[in-house]
């Protein structure tokens, strides 16, 4: 939210100064196998930029963008991070995260600092010796965001637990939130774990420990990171479907406040959920698109979709919902009626697979 405000202020200032009045537009950034990066103008229903992500890797995954929307950092097949300037297609950042030639590293969490100058990467390394592997401690590496082709970390912290799968930056830059067994609040300067919010160790009554896993950060439109949480009610018999509720966990990136809302729906597979810009609704996706009330968890409407989708995002004006990932289309739904309005399909129908889908504000005509 803050970033959007900053952009807006910049635009107003620019207009006031009577510079060429090209308003920033809203775009959807996503990627497809093996190495395609797309900028889509969803209102115009078209791909406006198409880039090739250089180097190895056949499966783009997590995508995070700089606060000004200009740089997209893409995790390629877990093993490389590549930063692409969306205006020019130029590679501004690249690393395989290895600290030595015999390391093989995967990324399991990526975030850009609030001021856009640093990139936070949660890394799971192993050393591959001549005749054996050696698992190394996990680490949080902090890279310069414009680190170039062989980016080297500025700081490396090795005090974090294993099994972290998501990093989110606090809007004021003072913390990184890391989702794992619990939610850890980390000092980006020292790596110190300043606070731990219990998930595995939650004290909720009559509830098993929760299960959650998410590689698709999508907090940009509401300022709320959201992820689905599955658990079992231990006060109900296991054959009762009501024993398997689904919650949405939201984390306010401005305040750090964490909330749970229990969704009033039967147990089912859901891949992701995104909160509307006005924070009133949650949209979820897998084989159906659902719109739920964020306050009560009540189901407002659901529609079947053409095939399974992994991700859902929403336009900044809250009027359109985008579902993508899996196959080769990002489909557009009316946020109110959930009627399908159209789709943007990748050239040659290449698979979007598990690539993330992010919304940015950017003036591409600049």
């Amino acid at each position, binding site marked *: 939210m803050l970033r959007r405000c900053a952009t807006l202020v910049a635009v107003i200032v620019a207009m006031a100064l009577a510079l060429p009045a090209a308003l920033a537009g809203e775009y959807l950034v996503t990627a497809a196998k093996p190495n395609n990066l797309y900028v889509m103008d969803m209102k115009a229903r078209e791909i406006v930029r198409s880039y090739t992500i250089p180097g190895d890797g056949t499966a783009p995954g997590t995508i995070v963008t700089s606060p000004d929307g200009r740089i997209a950092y893409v995790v390629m097949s877990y093993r490389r991070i590549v930063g692409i300037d969306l205006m020019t297609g130029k590679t501004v950042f690249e690393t395989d995260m290895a600290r030595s030639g015999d390391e093989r590293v995967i990324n399991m969490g990526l975030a850009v600092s609030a001021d856009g100058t640093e990139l936070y990467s949660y890394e799971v390394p192993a050393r591959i010796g*001549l005749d*054996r*592997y050696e698992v190394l401690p996990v680490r949080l590496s902090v890279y310069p965001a414009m680190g170039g082709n062989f980016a080297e970390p500025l700081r490396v912290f090795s005090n974090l637990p*294993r*099994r972290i799968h998501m990093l989110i930056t606090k809007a004021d830059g003072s913390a990184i939130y890391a989702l794992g067994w619990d939610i850890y609040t980390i000092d980006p300067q020292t790596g110190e774990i300043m606070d731990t919010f219990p998930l595995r160790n939650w004290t909720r009554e009559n509830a098993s420990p929760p*299960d959650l896993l998410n590689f698709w950060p999508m907090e940009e439109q509401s300022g709320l990171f959201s992820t689905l949480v599955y658990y079992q009610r231990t006060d109900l018999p296991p054959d009762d479907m009501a024993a398997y509720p689904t919650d949405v966990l939201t984390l306010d990136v401005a305040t750090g406040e964490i909330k749970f809302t229990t969704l009033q729906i039967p147990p089912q597979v859901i891949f992701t959920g995104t909160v509307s810009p006005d924070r009133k609704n949650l949209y979820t996706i897998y084989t159906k698109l659902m719109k739920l009330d964020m306050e009560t968890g009540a189901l407002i409407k659901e529609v079947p979709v053409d*095939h399974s989708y992994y991700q859902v995002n929403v336009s900044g004006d809250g009027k359109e919902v985008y579902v993508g990932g899996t196959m080769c289309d990002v489909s557009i739904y009316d946020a109110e009626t959930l009627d399908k309005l159209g789709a943007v399909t990748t050239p040659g129908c290449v698979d979007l697979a598990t690539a993330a889908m992010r919304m940015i504000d950017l003036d591409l005509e600049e």
Partner: protein
Amino acid sequence: MIRTYHVAFAFVAAIFALVLTACDEEQEAPPAAEATLADTGRELVQAICTGCHVKRDDGSLSRISFGRRTPEGWDMTLVRMMNFHGLSLTKEDRRAIVKYLSDTQGLAPSETVPFRYALERRPNIIESGQDQTMMEMCARCHSFARVGLQRRTKEEWLNLVHMHVGQWPTIEYQAMARDRDWWDDARGRVVDDLARAFPLDDPAWAAWQDAQRHALTGKWRFVSYQPGQGYHHGTLEFTEESKDEYTVHFDSTGPDGVAVSGDYNGILYTGFEWRGRGDFGGQPGREVAALSEDGNLLAGRWFHAERPEMGALFEARRVGSGSAIMGVDGEALRRGAETTLVILGTGLSGELDLGPGITTEVTAASESQITARVRVASDAALGRRSLRVGSLVSKDAVAVFDRIDRVVVTPDYATARVGGNGGATPIQAAQFEAVAMHNGADGEPGTADDFRIGVVDAEWSTAPWNEVAAEMNDDKFAGVISPAGLFTPGKAGPNPARVYGTNNAGDLKVIATVQDGDRTVTGEAHLIVTVQRWNSPPIY
């Protein structure tokens, strides 16, 4: 590095050969014995593997010398070296290395017994009897048999855990891993348990080193029962072409009475692990069997090379090593009826006797097959009973029944997989059989006096397993079942005709309908039709 060693080895071998030739010429000594496959394997291990595996003063090689595996296990290691670590091997070299390592660092027969189902590629096996933690830790991705068919030192089990994380680093994030301190569990209690359960040093392996070895050379009588089809039987003639390498000539008669002959070849590993391959009557076939310690019984399974679910358990007995009843075709004997019974075996001689109330008239008899007309009195005692041929007894070989009370479909839970459709992975079919059951004297199903009547013909159909499957019309898309109970799954890939364009997966009931006089009796099984296996290693 590896290639360099290869060249170096070839050079050394050439020099060696030259020296041998020179010796032959000068001394006119008898020709040196040709190097066996295992000899070649030993040379190759020393020449190639030492590129990365450190040779210690005691002659041991790092990693390699501290584990024991089946031939399939060693081959999977080599394939991993080839796929992930740049090893390049010819087919012949790979065979030789597997032979050498299986011979010198294999598993004893008794060590393989609990897990032979995996080597034999038996379909629809649900593993049980293992600790739940170990199942979740290992068998959520592959069979537990893959683990149980290895022996390692504790350090090597730990190295294996490191390899898993290094090679598949998302392992910690999967379901049944992310809910626990996976890494601490894996390198701690799991390694402890594995080292205890499957240690490198085992008395069984030590004893097997001293056990007498038997060649397969000679004639064998084989009988195999293929679900959905019936008995195949005939002879195998093994010829040892070079040490432990055989060609096999087979003459077989199938359930339809059609005779098939052919030749294939194979290798005897570790003194008892027979692996055959070749053309099995027009199909690319494989054979996995274990030779008994007395060298007279070969038992295992043959299967289609690309469709391992299609195959049959078999046993082969060395002709002349004794007599045995190996199969009874026509086990279900209805009271008051007359039927044909075929007894398959080896060394068969003497009177056929089915006990009181059953008269027999032998219509054809040889030492390997007896065909008889059998008349069952209308008051013959109900139940399973033994069959005698001379002094041989086949316990509970036949059933006398008056009615079919129930039908049990086997397997009761099966998996089929979509495939084909231009993809690299073929379908996996599922074969069902209808087994007629009698409720016994008390007339109550599920009690101790119930008895199996035998496999009967049925009319086969499928239906959705539950409401969700019904809503998705799974029975219309997932595949079709033949009159012989063979379920053939649908084609792979998204199906635009289905809701969500989903693939032809399905959750089905398989229903056998059996006519018993005026009565209709049905039985059901559960069939999951799922997606392809994307890799198909020899041990799942």
